[in-house]
């Protein structure tokens, strides 16, 4: 695993894309296929379920280092990362072995879950006793399921393409779907000629860039197809070899969680792939995303939930037809086929993404202004002659979202960040006024500049009222404008509302705490509330 730990260190040491790709190329050129397979697995963000509760790891490590638990906690809060803290306090290894990554994963990591606590302890301690700091760090990240390094799957595929000479798009496609890392699998992944015949495999999603210029610059509106931008789960429904597969964009196979869509898949003709969105839908209207969240993550869905949150498939595109990859055909042709397919099937949970018609950009802008009432995020603009491309390609597809909802809230609690923000207070909870008190309304971590983060951090240190474990109650003074994408009533939140994707838009240094919003004014933003 030394080579993999070294790769991690090199990736971690640079922010330059070219250097990261170089490091990956060096690694994949020399790694054994079985080892490389697991490297691809972890580097592309896949992870096995957590093998050992972190609490145990922390206890064992503190024992080995001969320090009490409180001192470990103290250290962890300074380091800001559990896996790293453990690696830093472990005694030097008795001997330093270099087992292949695949060996560690297959013979130890994957077996940990089924072991008793004592067996786990013995296995983990044995591993630590032969690993240097770098290996132990990466190993801890792997067994806590927290392995993350600053590379995208795009960079991994670029490197694999350079090593093998196989086109990056082909590798991206081979990486999709359900696969088990093994030497054989890796050999096929980078094979110049492999039969790409896995029936369940989805296509890479075509993604849109945010439109940050005036739409007029896109030219003649007649060259563009406009659709609503729905807020659900982007997905592909696949019908091949007599089976139906539903994939989410997170590359998770979710067929079993949406039985009504599996049934829909069974109605599709053989050799069909739909690009689509899973939406909670009732009485011809989309429900708030929060409703869909009640179904996300559940493996089995009870009848009650099926009744309360029925879903439909909003069909956007047809990318495989009669067993043929039709992604290169112009969008208008694919759309025509899609419309024909939809009317032939005539299923109530297949909804064709409606086109938004307008004869001018200003007319379209006026339609977009009504997005909030429709419960959509804005518009999608797609060139009528565009192919269905791999990933986020500039020029063909744009998302033209409506501005976020905003509110002014007061910083009330703060917690230390992790990783690059370790040792700084960067995780904030904000409150709005209700009956003379501040009630928590949202948590946000992003949106401030590094300079602002330092200033807020300094403020927090000087103005802490109380400390509960890692959380500090702060003198309510600082006001921030928060942006968020949606709001809905929630009985689980003290404030009675839940906001979606909150982030800090700016620090309102011009406002005092008592000028922040009230819960009442926030409730007015709820869908259906009188404006």
């Amino acid at each position, binding site marked *: 695993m030394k080579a993999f730990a070294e790769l991690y260190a090199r990736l971690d040491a640079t922010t330059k894309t070219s250097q990261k790709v170089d490091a990956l190329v060096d690694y994949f050129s020399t790694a054994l296929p079985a080892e490389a397979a697991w490297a691809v697995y972890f580097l592309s963000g896949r992870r096995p379920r957590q093998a050992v509760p972190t609490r145990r790891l922390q206890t064992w490590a503190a024992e080995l280092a001969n*320090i009490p638990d409180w*001192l470990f906690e103290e*250290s962890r809060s*300074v380091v800001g*990362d559990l896996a790293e*803290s453990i690696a830093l306090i472990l005694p030097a290894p008795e001997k330093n072995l270099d087992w292949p990554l695949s060996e560690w994963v297959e013979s130890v990591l994957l077996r940990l879950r089924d072991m008793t606590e004592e067996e786990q302890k013995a296995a983990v301690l044995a591993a630590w006793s032969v690993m240097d700091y770098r290996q132990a760090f990466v190993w801890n990240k792997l067994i806590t399921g927290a392995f993350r390094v600053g590379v995208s799957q795009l960079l991994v595929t670029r490197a694999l393409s350079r090593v093998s000479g196989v086109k990056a798009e082909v590798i991206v496609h081979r990486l999709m779907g359900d696969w088990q890392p093994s030497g054989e699998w890796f050999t096929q992944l980078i094979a110049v000629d492999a039969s790409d015949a896995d029936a369940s495999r989805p296509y890479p999603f075509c993604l849109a860039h945010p439109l940050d210029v005036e739409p007029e610059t896109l030219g003649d509106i007649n060259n563009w197809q406009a659709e609503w931008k729905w807020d659900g789960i982007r997905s592909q429904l696949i019908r091949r070899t007599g089976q139906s597969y539903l994939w989410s964009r997170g590359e998770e196979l979710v067929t079993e969680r949406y039985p009504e869509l599996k049934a829909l898949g069974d109605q599709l003709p053989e050799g069909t792939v739909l690009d689509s969105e899973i939406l909670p839908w009732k009485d011809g209207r989309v429900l708030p995303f929060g409703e869909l969240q009640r179904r996300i993550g559940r493996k089995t869905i009870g009848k009650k939930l099926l009744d309360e949150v029925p879903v439909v498939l909003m069909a956007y595109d047809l990318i495989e037809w009669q067993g043929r990859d039709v992604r290169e055909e112009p969008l208008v042709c694919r759309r025509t086929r899609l419309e024909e397919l939809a009317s032939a099937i005539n299923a109530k949970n297949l909804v064709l993404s409606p086109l938004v018609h307008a004869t001018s950009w200003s007319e379209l802008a006026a339609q977009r202004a009504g997005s909030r009432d429709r419960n959509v995020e804005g518009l999608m603009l797609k060139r009528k002659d565009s192919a269905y491309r791999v990933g986020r390609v500039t020029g063909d597809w744009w998302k033209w979202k409506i501005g976020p909802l905003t509110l002014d809230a007061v910083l009330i609690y703060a917690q230390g960040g992790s990783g690059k923000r*370790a040792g700084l207070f960067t995780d904030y909870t904000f409150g709005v006024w209700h009956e003379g008190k501040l009630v928590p309304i949202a948590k946000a971590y992003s949106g401030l500049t590094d300079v602002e983060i*330092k200033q807020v951090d300094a403020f927090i240190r000087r103005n802490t009222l109380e400390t509960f474990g890692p959380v500090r109650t702060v003198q309510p003074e600082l006001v921030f404008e928060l942006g968020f994408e949606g709001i809905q009533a929630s009985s689980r939140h003290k404030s009675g509302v839940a906001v979606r994707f909150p982030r800090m838009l700016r620090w309102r240094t011009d406002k005092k705490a008592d000028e922040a919003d009230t819960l009442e004014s926030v409730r007015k933003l709820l869908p259906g509330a009188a404006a």
Partner: protein
Amino acid sequence: MPTPLITQTDRGLYCAAGDFFIDPWRPVQRAVISHAHSDHARIGSDRYLCSSPGREILRSRLDGTATIDALPYGEVIEHNGVRISFHPAGHILGSSQIRLERHGEVWVITGDYKLDRDPTCAHFEMVRCHSLLTESTFGLPVYRWASTSEIFAEINSWWRANRDAGKASLLFGYALGKAQRLLSGLDPTIGPIYLHGSVERMTNEYRNAGIELPPTQHVSAGPTGTRWAGAIILAPPSAHNSPWSRRFSDAGTAMASGWMRVRGARRRRAIDRGFVLSDHVDWSGLHTVVKECGATQVWVTHGFVAPLVRRFQEMGLDAHGMTTAYEGEVDEPEGEA
């Protein structure tokens, strides 16, 4: 409990019996100085006392007119009934632990110190005492240092790899002490060594004191144009991302500091590499010193005061924190370390 020999005042550590201050923050009549770093040696006091090897460096850091008395390591001077002597702290050239003795009671104020070998200064001396007043900059178990030779092997191979890639190497370290220690470990056969102005001034002080260091040049004496490829440049951390550093546009960057032990601290600085090389004592070293100096009472100052005090108390020591303005906070580590 009788009044301790050393107490904390708003001007710094004060020895009432002897009527003098140790490393005062504000001007006083008599200042006994552990070493010349600016947080320990401030201008404006009437009279200074330091170790002989530290005298010229101290003079260069204070204004030229300061009255500085010096005492060789191990020699004793008696002042108002308090016996004062300096003992090597191993931190930088001339750095001292200050030993005070009154009526047979011995205190040692460590100043900043390290136990690792460093050819640019005298090695830390273990001094027996009743009360130890120790720094705690790195007083957490995550801060443990690898051997110096291992770190220098890493630094030199980083320099060599940059050279082979046609790049310069820009290495940041505190101008007084850290930079000279770095110099002593660099392998001059790899390429030329250049110094930032502030590093050069301090390096000259070291050379004047007879410390042998590899040949160097001031950056302004460097090649015209931009042919820095293969060279290493030593500069203080404040030069990172400054107009000065722009001339080395494509250089690999690194920082040598104990803080580099933690990944987040390095990433926050946006440098390529962090070398864990510190001039402070690490977690294990703190325990070694506390055990071997024989102290029955331990006072902990600047750094991770609270956890270290608690740990020492758990180990059965009579440990206390000496209150400072920074107590219990992890400050953004910009200083010398």
